[in-house]
């Protein structure tokens, strides 16, 4: 064997298992589902299926799916917005204001819930938000006679639960971006006469934009595909596209329609990435 053939074999042996695995579990399944989305019968039915566009037609012609899609996208926006609103100042405080041991301790405390089960965290909100839950009881204790507050099974409940689930992502990405900003840049801005706010707006914010954008992408994508969280916290209110897809596969067993809806969801995700990508490119460079 010549050295180049040997190298080629080495590369093939090293990458082969991982990519064969990914082909069989990600790429071929996606192709299979794309094919199924154009068929008129579920594979569960033992009859030959034929080509149809009805599954996509159903999505665009029935008014039923628009509110689901709209709510899924809105949910993505609200959760990303609240994660940014709460997470960015926290990341800023950690990266620029708190030093030493405290920073490490708080940082660890913020990423720690990350390593606990996502489902369990969503479940735990039901105990906080329901009537006679912790929120309700604290309000009653402070304002005796106030009307009972039952937030469970409502739109806000879903937003609160998902914000809680994904907040660490935003803090993490913003923290990494903010920490990389040299303090002397801020000092330079200040000494050249800019106010603290202007320095923030013209120096800190643009430099930390890649962190914000990657955090947004990391949050938006899973949130618009979510079905478990809206089901546990939203109950019958606020059905998402994800919940409907899940039902097509588990309850009504209409796999072709479910496949078409999955690809529509995927298309939305790709559009979002397309919008966010230029910002990442421009600001992040190779990073």
């Amino acid at each position, binding site marked *: 064997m010549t050295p180049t053939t040997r190298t080629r074999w080495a590369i093939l042996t090293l990458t082969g298992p991982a990519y064969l695995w990914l082909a069989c579990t990600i790429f071929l399944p996606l192709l299979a589902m794309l094919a199924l989305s154009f068929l008129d019968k579920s594979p569960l039915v033992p009859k030959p299926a034929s080509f149809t566009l009805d599954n996509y037609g159903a999505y665009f012609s029935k008014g039923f799916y628009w509110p689901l899609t709209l709510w899924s996208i809105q949910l993505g926006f609200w959760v990303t917005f609240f994660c940014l609103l709460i997470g960015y100042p926290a990341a800023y405080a950690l990266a620029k204001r708190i030093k030493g041991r405290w920073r490490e301790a708080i940082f660890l405390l913020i990423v720690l819930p990350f390593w606990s089960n996502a489902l369990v965290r969503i479940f735990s909100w039901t*105990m906080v938000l329901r009537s006679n839950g912790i929120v309700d009881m604290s309000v009653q204790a402070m304002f005796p006679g106030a009307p009972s507050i039952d937030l469970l099974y409502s739109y806000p409940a879903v937003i609160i639960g998902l914000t809680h689930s994904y907040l660490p992502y935003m803090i993490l990405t913003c923290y990494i971006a903010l920490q990389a900003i040299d303090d002397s840049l801020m000092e330079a801005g200040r000494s050249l006469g800019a106010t603290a706010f202007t320095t923030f707006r013209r120096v800190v914010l643009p430099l930390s934009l890649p962190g914000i954008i990657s955090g947004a992408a990391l949050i938006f994508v899973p949130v618009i595909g979510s079905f478990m969280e809206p089901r546990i916290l939203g109950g019958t209110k606020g059905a998402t596209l994800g919940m409907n897809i899940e039902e097509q596969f588990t309850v009504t067993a209409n796999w072709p329609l479910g496949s078409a809806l999955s690809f529509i969801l995927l298309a939305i995700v790709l559009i979002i990435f397309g919008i966010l990508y230029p910002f990442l490119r421009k600001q992040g460079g190779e990073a």
Partner: protein
Amino acid sequence: MKRLLDGGIRFYLVLVLVFLYLPILVMALFAFNKSPLYALPFEFDLVWFRALAENDKLLKAGLNSLLIALANTVIATSFGTMAAVAFGRYAFRGKTLLQALLFPPIAIPWLVIGTAMLVFFFWTARAMGVPGMARGLHAILLGHVALSLPYVIFVVGARLNDYPKVLEEAAATLGATPWQVFRRVSVPILAPGVVAAALFAFAVSFDQFVISYFLAPPGVTTLPVEIYTSIRKGFTPEINAISTIIIAVSMGLMLIVARFYRFGGERSGNE
């Protein structure tokens, strides 16, 4: 003024932490509370942990989760590390494409990937004449490894990038045999990355709900799937008990790892 500002910042961080930990603490509280209806006042009791010890379904699901997570860690870490070494140590045509292919498993919602796997596995199993094979623990393992591989390749790859190939070449030039190069240079470089990647792979699998949910046939479940089923049937504090155990164990492990990692980092820095 400065002191006031600092106080405000600290107060804000405390509020964020309260938000992050409130539901977890509430859940643990009710795990130790006697009432089956999550009613207060609090009355300490271990009744739900005792009930849990006799709940074979939940325990079986927990064992399944653990076994799949361990198998996933071994497979994903080995194959992922191999691919990362190929990317880090060789230049070849198609490398950029292969690396780009790692993004879909991360960027596509799990719901889409999970349902796609269900469709493909169903067709494949039927074509092979064993339709029952479409779902099950083996299918769940297939899915988990696919999700873990990109993370492993990124984590190990990041580590390799910090240590250029010349280190290995230098060792070889100085007379080390290929085995010595591997044992004395490559392994120490890779080790911290591989350990971190393995932890990642374990966490990805042990936490994974969506993929497992679609690939679990009736009667065979992993812990998250079983918890979800129980929640939908109606809440029971047994779920609190097992959740409290999971959270305590996983957070405890992370704390240990965080400590270990700091020491590890410092030591390798001094060498």
